[in-house]
């Protein structure tokens, strides 16, 4: 009876180790603080109506940023530092502490940390940031007012959040995460070798957020293909929209594979089937094959929008149209096509034979062709331009330095005999971090600082942004050059301890120092955002076009109104807004606007989806069935809801536009005309301390 009611749950599942107690206390305190603040300031209704149930892609984009940024700092980044600390202390001649034989983490705990680090950084940080950018920017760039299916978008976001909650759930219940590496290779991920619930948490957090990604991707493909402003043909679309389109098409192609594969692993674990087991005819190699058929395109799903971001930035800050747009876009398309046919290079060492290995090796190095073309078009864009060294441009220059390392080592790894040596070594780890940090993360940072004025209405503090950038670059070179070297020395990845005689320790220590410098960089990025909020009057963007932009998102005021465009623009050329500015901006004609209504269905469905996952982790069958029915009922109920839109009349639009303009004029008039330079670090620290002292003295958060 007890087993029927609560499955395998027991008191032992509650937190009792230092990291689960610490983690659950941290998340508990955070939730408590949020509840208190929301209650005291009476903001529950506001939060629910304005944000949580919103279908506005701009608000959903910002929520993606917040969740991804939080996961980057609180989980992924912290885990990176924890691993580096363990490895710096992990030499076999040093005593262990906290009960570990080497360093301060046991082997299982260390393995759980690198597994979680990989899952979180890919699924919940990189994907979150990329979806945030796509949500906010793509509709603006194509001159659309909303999305093809706003409901699918909010559902996608809330499934993503359900995945985030699931990946943190083991702190509260269960006490362990998977220790299998981020792709959970079989047969290690089977019940035989991973009997605990950690692996089930991995399956369900990836499964739920993966389904969200598929839905979100379908929606953005429809949006980009069907909702572009009149006159914007495919070959007039901005590069970022192109990158997003390629990325989303790839996502729809490969994410169902992930879903299917994870279901098969789940069957193996739950129903004792034998798809990937060692015994009874299971084939573990098939798992490796299937998961990489998804896994390799996945990194390109992340990086293609980032390529688009860099193209926009180089073009804007060089004050030139992108050199040979056609080659640039064909480059993006070429990368996505090749990326679908190279997955086998992740397991040359499984022994497929020379013919198979050579074929996939050749396909892999051919990816370098469109990628090099992209880089060449960026260089040619800068040629005879007028380049402004803003922070987005700095991130671009940093990206090139790091990404070239990643690209060169990537082609080396594509040569099968070379891969036999480099595979599973730290050289490989350094290679893909160069690409994912240099390409995706720097792309996201560049994109956020580029589009921040559009999102917030004021630009980011440039000075602190520069400091953060240099910390990242210095930290990165100190962390990852030693990692390449360790790989060449024969260090495999995922080692929590190593022989003292190997001489590796100084390099692990350098990696830790680099990691700390990167952490300082992240702290400076947070300081940058806070300093920009403090200084928002001075940094205010009154024109909506702070960078002299070229694409349509700069045609609307900053921050963009809920309906994006009061008048849908007529597009005639590429760089549509640049052309409009040259030709003279046409007079605005106001019209009735149909907008989607807020909905909470996405939240309800995601809660049920979460419960299905949680119930299956703990073998509570009745709850899984009930929740599944609940989710299906919610979906059906939503499809019968015909009342999903409301109309903003032309008169209302005109009034809103006027109020907005009046507000902008007022802000512009009282624009802070203090010293021209953005505030530096010392000034920022001084301001924060003064503010804190003031709060203590007056017991008020804001100056009245």
């Amino acid at each position: 009876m007890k087993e029927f009611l609560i499955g395998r749950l027991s008191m032992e599942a509650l937190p009792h180790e230092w990291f689960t107690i610490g983690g659950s206390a941290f998340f508990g305190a955070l939730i408590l603080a949020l509840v208190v603040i929301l209650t005291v300031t009476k903001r529950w209704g506001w939060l629910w109506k304005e944000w949580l149930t919103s279908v506005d892609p701009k608000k959903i984009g910002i929520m993606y940023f917040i969740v991804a940024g939080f996961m980057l700092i609180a989980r992924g980044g912290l885990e990176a530092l924890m691993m580096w600390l363990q490895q710096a202390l992990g030499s076999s001649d040093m005593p262990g502490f906290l009960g570990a034989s080497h360093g301060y983490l046991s082997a299982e705990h260390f393995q759980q940390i690198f597994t979680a680090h990989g899952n979180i950084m890919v699924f919940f940080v990189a994907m979150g940031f990329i979806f945030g950018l796509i949500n906010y920017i793509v509709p603006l760039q194509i001159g659309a007012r909303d999305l093809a299916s706003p409901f699918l978008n909010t559902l996608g976001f809330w499934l993503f959040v359900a995945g985030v909650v699931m990946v943190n759930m083991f702190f509260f219940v269960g006490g362990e995460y998977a220790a299998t590496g981020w792709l959970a290779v079989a047969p290690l991920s089977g019940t035989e070798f991973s009997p605990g619930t950690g692996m089930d948490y991995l399956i369900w957090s990836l499964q739920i957020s993966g389904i969200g990604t598929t839905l979100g991707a379908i929606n953005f493909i429809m949006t980009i293909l069907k909702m572009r402003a009149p006159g914007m043909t495919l070959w007039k679309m901005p590069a970022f929209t192109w990158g997003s389109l390629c990325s989303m098409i790839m996502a729809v192609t490969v994410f169902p594979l992930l879903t299917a594969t994870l279901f098969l692993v789940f069957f193996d674990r739950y129903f004792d089937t034998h798809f990937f087991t060692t015994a009874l005819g299971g084939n573990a190699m098939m798992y490796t094959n299937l998961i990489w058929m998804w896994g390799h395109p996945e990194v390109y799903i992340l990086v293609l929008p980032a390529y688009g971001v860099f193209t926009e930035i180089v073009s804007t800050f060089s004050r030139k149209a992108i050199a040979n747009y056609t080659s640039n876009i064909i480059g993006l398309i070429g990368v996505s096509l090749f990326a679908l046919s190279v997955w086998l290079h992740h397991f040359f060492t499984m022994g497929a034979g020379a013919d198979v290995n050579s074929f996939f090796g050749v396909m892999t190095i051919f990816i370098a062709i469109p990628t090099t073309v992209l880089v060449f078009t960026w260089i040619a864009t800068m040629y005879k331009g007028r380049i402004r060294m803003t922070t987005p441009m700095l991130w671009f220059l940093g990206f090139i330095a790091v990404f070239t390392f990643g690209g060169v080592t990537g082609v080396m790894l594509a040569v099968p005999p070379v891969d036999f040596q480099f595979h599973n070594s730290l050289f490989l780890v350094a290679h893909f971090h160069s690409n994912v940090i240099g390409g995706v993360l720097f792309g996201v940072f560049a994109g956020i600082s580029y589009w921040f004025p559009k999102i917030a209405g004021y630009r980011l503090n440039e000075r602190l942004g520069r400091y953060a950038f240099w910390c990242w670059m210095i930290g990165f070179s100190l962390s990852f050059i030693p990692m390449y070297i360790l790989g060449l020395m024969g260090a495999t990845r995922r080692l929590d301890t190593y022989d003292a005689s190997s001489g590796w320790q100084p390099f692990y220590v350098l990696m830790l120092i680099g990691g700390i410098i990167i952490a300082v960089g992240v702290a400076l990025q947070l300081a940058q955002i806070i300093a920009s909020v403090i200084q928002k009057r001075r940094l205010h963007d009154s024109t909506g076009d702070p960078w002299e932009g070229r694409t349509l998102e700069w045609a609307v005021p900053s921050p963009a109104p809920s309906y994006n465009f009061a008048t849908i623009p007529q597009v005639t050329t590429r760089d549509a807004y640049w052309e409009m500015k040259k030709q003279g901006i046409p007079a605005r004609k106001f019209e009735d606007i149909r907008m989607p209504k807020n909905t909470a269905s996405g939240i309800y469905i995601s809660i049920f989806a979460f419960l299905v996952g949680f119930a299956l982790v703990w073998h509570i069958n009745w709850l899984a069935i009930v929740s599944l029915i609940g989710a299906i009922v919610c979906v059906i109920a939503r499809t019968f809801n015909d009342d999903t839109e409301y109309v903003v009349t032309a008169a209302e639009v005109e009034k809103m536009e006027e109020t907005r303009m009046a507000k902008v004029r007022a802000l512009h008039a009282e624009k802070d005309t203090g010293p021209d330079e953005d505030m530096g670090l010392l000034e920022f620290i001084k301001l924060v301390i003064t503010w804190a002292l003031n709060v203590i003295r007056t017991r008020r958060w804001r100056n009245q």
Partner: protein
Amino acid sequence: MTKQTDKSRQNRAILYVVLWVFVLVLLFAVLLNGTDIRMLNPKGFVAQEEFKLIVFTTAVLLAIAVPTLFFLYFFAWKYRESNTKAKFDPDKKHGKFFIFCLWAIPVVFMLVLAPVMWVATHKLEPQKSIDSENKTLTVQVIALRWKWLFIYPEQHIATVNYVQVPVDTPVEFDLTADDMPMSSFWVPHWGGQLYAMTGMTNKLNLVPTTLGDSTGSSAEINGKGFAGMKFTARASSKQDFDAWVRHVKQLPGVLDMVEYESLLKPSENNPSAFYSMTEADLYDKVLMKYMGSHDHHMGQE
């Protein structure tokens, strides 16, 4: 900000970058002094060939990467906003020749790499035996939780976490695993790795060419004891090898089914162990365990 401070800031930044690169070079030059970078210090025929390929691909790739980086940073500097003397041509149109170069340059580089890669992949295919005047030595390797069992079928001996082979002799490592997730057999000094998986044999052919001890490990994560799954790989002269085989045969350890069952039990950081063999077909039995049989236990027939 004024143009003046802008300019001096940029000059300072360039100076700092150059200084930082210099510091890094110095730092790593000092740290690397006297260390063994195994992949650049091959001690086997395969590792040597792979090392040559590493050098070749690096050279080809740097030939395209260095000029690319140079032009990118040079243009970023030359066409900076404060340099009003540089030409500004916002409507610059690029001709057919530019577009041709855009695609031709990377295509040429990859067409240079691709045939080299195809040939090398076939030449260095690990399953292919290596020609030599010396007779190939077969060593059967079973990955167990978490140790390596080496069986010398012709010499009738077996070892744990220690493998010794005669120098300049081709060695065929027959890799499999028993009750163990996928593992990867890797001796960086001798050559690249290959996976050891249950129910099948992967053949890894290597030829150690330098006398001495190296370290081998599992490169693929396979559970709790992963980091400690290391072994000593010794290349000795033919005489020393034969003497060692005779010596092992005189040691008390015997690998029979009982001893094998105890090796099957998970254990970590195992020291080396040496056995003479009574079960000649142990390796085949381990393989057969996973081949279509629904009987998970061995040794019951």
